[in-house]
């Protein structure tokens, strides 16, 4: 069915919407676990964005208030403008939102049920692996650029060991970058 829809409506925007609709229910443990797949589709396969644009989208979303899923909106906007933002955001949200409302009505009392604990605990290692995979994929553009990688590593260590507010760290990153401290020249 999806295949024939592709053939009928041969627009990149429609493809983008379909792809994000399909990804929605795979978003285990939050939207950032989708980043590797979005990178594969938008940067590697379709060439809609550059590596730098993709990573900048995540940085911009983290610098703004609100849920982290906003990086998906920024990705869509950068790839195809307002309609792109609408396609990625609606695509990634609608299926999982529908499911959340349905489950909410069925199982308000069952948050302790074994299957739900199994879901959370079983998927936790997958979620962690996907977050680290995201880091890996996004860092590849900086291989050999020692200072940039060092800043990323220090940030990771600070997040893992302190309670520093993420916004303060991102602003510090903007300052460090703005002063030209990351340029290898």
């Amino acid at each position, binding site marked *: 069915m999806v295949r024939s829809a592709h053939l009928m409506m041969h627009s990149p925007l429609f493809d983008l919407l379909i792809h994000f609709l399909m990804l929605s229910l795979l978003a285990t443990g939050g939207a950032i676990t989708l980043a590797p797949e979005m990178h594969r589709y938008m940067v590697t396969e379709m060439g809609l964005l550059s590596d730098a644009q993709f990573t900048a989208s995540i940085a911009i979303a983290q610098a703004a208030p609100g849920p982290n899923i906003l990086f998906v909106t920024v990705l869509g906007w950068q790839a195809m403008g307002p309609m792109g933002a609408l396609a990625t955001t609606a695509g990634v949200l609608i299926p*999982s939102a529908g499911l959340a409302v349905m489950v909410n009505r069925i199982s308000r009392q069952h948050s302790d049920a*074994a299957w739900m604990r199994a879901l959370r605990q079983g998927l936790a290692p997958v979620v962690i692996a996907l977050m680290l995979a995201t880091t890996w994929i996004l860092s590849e553009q900086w291989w050999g650029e020692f200072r940039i990688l060092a800043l990323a590593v220090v940030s990771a260590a600070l997040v893992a060991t302190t309670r520093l507010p993420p916004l303060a760290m991102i602003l510090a990153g903007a300052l460090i970058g703005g002063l030209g401290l990351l340029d290898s020249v």
Partner: protein
Amino acid sequence: MTETPRSLSDLFWTFTRMALQGFGGVLPIAERILVHRRQWMTAKDFVETLAIAQALPGPNIVNLSLMVGDRFFGVRGAAMALAGMMLLPIVLVLGLTVLYQVTADLEITRRMLLGMSAVSVGLIAGMGLRLARTQGHFRAGWLIGAAVFLLVAILHKPLGMVLLAFGLPAVVLRWWQLKNGAQRSSYDA
């Protein structure tokens, strides 16, 4: 006793206020406002609802918003809570994006974004590491995690395939372990 939202617009603005206060994570603020300030749910209720929100696909905070909205005003409430959580933040983040795009040719923009990007990538790794520290109890998880990392990061395999091959068995295995008396994890807390 818990309170209820006065109206759909009360729901909308409460979630908007929540979203606007959350830089790099809205959940702690959601708890403060929903449980303590507005008292729309008890602490226990919050934890239980969050547990379901975490088990389902999609962002935890978005699922939680939908479930709270749905509880008070049905589907309209769910939509309103979601809109509250997303609408104004979207406007703000797109404002930043446009600012980035119109100044993209400037050297200073490129440099600042490079610094922000490096920190952002570090943030994601740091969050992953923090979560990893809570994972001692599920030994097979380390193997599964390593396999997922290899397939996604190095071999660039599609996510759907990887989840089917490793996520599903991990859940089944964990279900079997829990049934046979494995301990609760701290990830649950």
